[in-house]
């Protein structure tokens, strides 16, 4: 048995190896440091995001997230220095400075993030110096993001993004921020999710200082240190920033998830609890009750159809996997495989605890492995991202997109309903009955 997989039937002792570099030659579903930084900072809509490197890194990340903005949409453009051979030989600093000059004048952004890529790490451009110089000239923060692709995996990229954002935090005016205030960290406003979450918190009387980073704004992040609490979703992406803010500004953090009814409700209660405010807790119960009364009957309908179906999960971070396991349980479905690209040992241990015996738990998988699990477990629906989708479809298995490119809101109470509907519309489609079948297995 490979050491990135555990099967609970065979041993309860969890010895999964994770948080390591991917094996050379495996078709890993993982990305790189740059990818990690890019996805975290991407939704900051009034900042210029300039990728310093050859064209590929910028072009493959053009408009890839479904992260919406209520105002400026600078984040949806793909800016690059498009380094050429002569830049690689003679250095790209001049080109970078000129590109920043040109783009800042053109777009008047509130800040600029400058991403370094593999090649910049090798040719040794002094990003700090260029950024300092341009920052002085233009009077806006110009922040280097140390995201050379080869320096680790996506997690390192999250760290680099958090370091970059931390340069903004603490530079804004915090006057007028009420005591009962929070920052929302780790939601990226895919399909408008952060708007729904903000509304929930506002309904219980909490003020939101900064969205980090969904529908994010530079000015808000600058004053984020004025909030009383950081509410952090997701395992890795923005926890680093919360840690730094705790150390520097003494702001406590709680971890939440907005996927699924239980976790969404808990996210609201946890904030009310933190503020030790009875009135707020009363409102929180009201909000949850109200929202549940809208969606619960509809979810029961889906549950009737989906009960007993088998689900497999392979997502970026393990934290999302926890919520998905619970969400499937709510739909009466069995999770038979769960895995992630970047989970930690303790997260996998936790996954092992909340899943049924026999569930396959996997770290940093690849298409061959994933396809064999889908078949071995005779899965009815697979949840993953774009790279996993064709594996499912090729084998005639239903699929639900649950990554940062999706266009359906899956967070919040309505999100749970959307999720049920997504799962339902794929699993119940008549098309699966026409797929090639294994002898003796029904496709209905």
């Amino acid at each position: 048995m490979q050491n990135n997989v555990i099967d609970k039937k065979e041993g309860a002792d969890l010895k999964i190896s994770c948080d390591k570099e991917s094996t050379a030659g495996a078709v890993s579903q993982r990305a790189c440091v740059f990818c990690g930084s890019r996805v975290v900072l991407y939704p900051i809509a009034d900042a210029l995001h300039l990728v310093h490197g050859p064209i590929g890194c910028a072009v493959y990340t053009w408009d890839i997230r479904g992260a919406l903005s209520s105002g400026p949409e600078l984040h949806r453009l793909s800016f690059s220095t498009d380094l050429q051979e002569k830049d690689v030989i003679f250095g790209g600093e001049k080109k970078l400075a000129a590109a920043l000059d040109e783009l800042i004048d053109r777009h008047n952004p509130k800040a600029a993030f400058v991403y370094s890529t593999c090649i910049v790490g090798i040719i040794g451009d002094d990003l700090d110096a260029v950024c300092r110089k341009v920052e002085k000239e233009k009077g806006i923060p110009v922040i280097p993001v140390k995201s050379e692709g080869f320096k680790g995996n996506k997690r390192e990229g999250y760290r680099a993004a958090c370091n970059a954002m931390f340069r903004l935090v603490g530079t804004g005016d915090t006057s007028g921020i009420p005591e009962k205030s929070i920052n929302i960290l780790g939601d990226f406003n895919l399909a408008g999710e952060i708007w729904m979450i903000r509304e929930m918190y506002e309904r219980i009387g909490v003020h939101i200082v900064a969205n980090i980073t969904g529908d994010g704004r530079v000015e808000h992040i600058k004053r984020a240190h004025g909030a009383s609490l950081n509410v952090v979703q997701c395992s890795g992406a923005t926890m680093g920033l919360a840690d730094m803010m705790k150390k520097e500004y003494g702001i406590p953090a709680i971890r939440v998830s907005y996927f699924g009814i239980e976790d969404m409700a808990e996210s609201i209660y946890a904030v009310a609890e933190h503020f030790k405010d009875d009135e707020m807790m009363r409102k929180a119960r009201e909000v949850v009750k109200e929202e549940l009364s809208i969606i619960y009957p509809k979810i029961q309908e889906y549950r009737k159809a989906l009960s007993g179906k088998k689900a497999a999960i392979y997502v970026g971070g393990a934290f999302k996997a926890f919520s998905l396991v619970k969400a499937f349980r709510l739909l009466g479905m069995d999770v038979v495989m769960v895995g992630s690209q970047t989970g930690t040992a303790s997260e996998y241990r936790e996954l092992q605890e909340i899943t049924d015996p026999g569930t396959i738990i996997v770290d940093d998988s690849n298409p061959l492995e994933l396809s064999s699990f889908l078949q071995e477990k005779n899965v009815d629906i697979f949840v993953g991202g774009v790279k996993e989708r064709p594996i499912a479809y090729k084998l005639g298995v239903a699929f639900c997109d649950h990554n940062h490119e999706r266009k359906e809101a899956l967070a919040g109470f309505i999100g749970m309903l959307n999720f049920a509907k997504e799962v339902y519309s794929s699993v119940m489609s008549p098309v699966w009955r026409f797929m090639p079948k294994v002898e003796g297995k029904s496709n209905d």
Partner: protein
Amino acid sequence: MTNMPNYVSTTNACKLCKPMGATLAFRGIEGAVPFLHGSQGCATYMRRYIISHFNEPMDIASSSLGEKHAIFGGGPNLKQGLKNVTDKFHPQLIGIASTCLTETIGDDLPMLLHEYREMTKENPDVPILVPVSTPSYSGTHMEGFHAAVRAVVGALAEESVEQSNSVVIFPGLLSPEDIRYLKEISSHYSVPFTILPDISDTLDGPALLEYEKIPHGGTAIESIKKLGTAAAAIEFGWTIDNKDSAGLLLKEKCAIDHLRLGLPIGLRESDSFFKILKDLTGIETPEVYENQRGRFIDSLADGHKYVFGKRAIVYGEEDLVVGMTSFLAEIGIRPVLCASGGKSGSLENAIRSVCDGLVSETPLIHEGMDFYEIEKLADELKPDILIGHSKGYQLARKRNIPIVRVGFPIHDRIGGQRTLHIGYKGAQQLFDSIANALLEKKQNDSNTGYSYM
């Protein structure tokens, strides 16, 4: 001619990077696994990008270099990676493309592969290893694609004294549907054809019971080895640089006649293709294609008014732009801008030549363009329609004009892999799509909403 200022920065590029093209070309060879020598992100990003167009599995292995490899060299990881791919996939061939990282740290791919072959020479299962140098800081995905095909020919085609009547086609980056159509056409001539690469099955396969480690299909290795016996090689693409041309390499290596054509898009470029087939095989154009041609011309009479004089911006890969522009000129649409992110240096000549005698005014022709610049020009040129891949959608939306999606990538519609561009049938489908897009626009914009044209 409208002059563009010389911008330093690139916004919304109209090109992809070189290694991406190489992976697509390697995907069209039987039993091959594309492999990137670089950091993990490149392979993952490209897979995601390719999968979103073809809706097919696209495995690209990577040597997954980390920081210490970037400092001490990627050789050990490359070799470990090749071993792992061999053990897991049992490929016949591994196509190894370099990246900006490994080119810059100075990894010598041919030498490392030589060492690997020496290390493994006792092992009969070692696949054919074909390296190609594709630094992402030069050229575009098309140069990468052609360079990979050339590298395969260089590595596999054997010199031969035998001479057969077979014909080789280097189609360039066409859709799987295009390649299927090419294969269908070639089946009507009584000589064997080799199409290299052939992505018709590997990037558009049927639903399966068992996941295939390597999708079936692709150009057979044995056929590639025998390229040296062919009667002639046809290479599509007016803008291919000689140093990237597989056809010219085959000519040098095995003295095979090299016939360069444009992508057979539209009437005249398709006519040239069928004429060459006739010249090479002595067989008249099969009736089925004469009929397709006839029907296409008939439809031009039926629909010419709806497209006449409409102003089009064509963008994308240079050779696709040349073919599309040629076709648009034939049907009476006025190409006002032909733009590409590529910089072959030969786009302008190619377009002037294919439009000769059909347009009253040569369109603006720009290499090295991005969508920021295309948009700037569109403000002046006021196009009625866009012809190109799906990344032009934002511009079409902003200007409230139709876009007819062709080429790669098509990320916002299904069926990109089934788009037919070439031959009379391709021309027919393009004409119908373009005329209908313009009709739909007119109908939607009208207050009356006529139910006849």
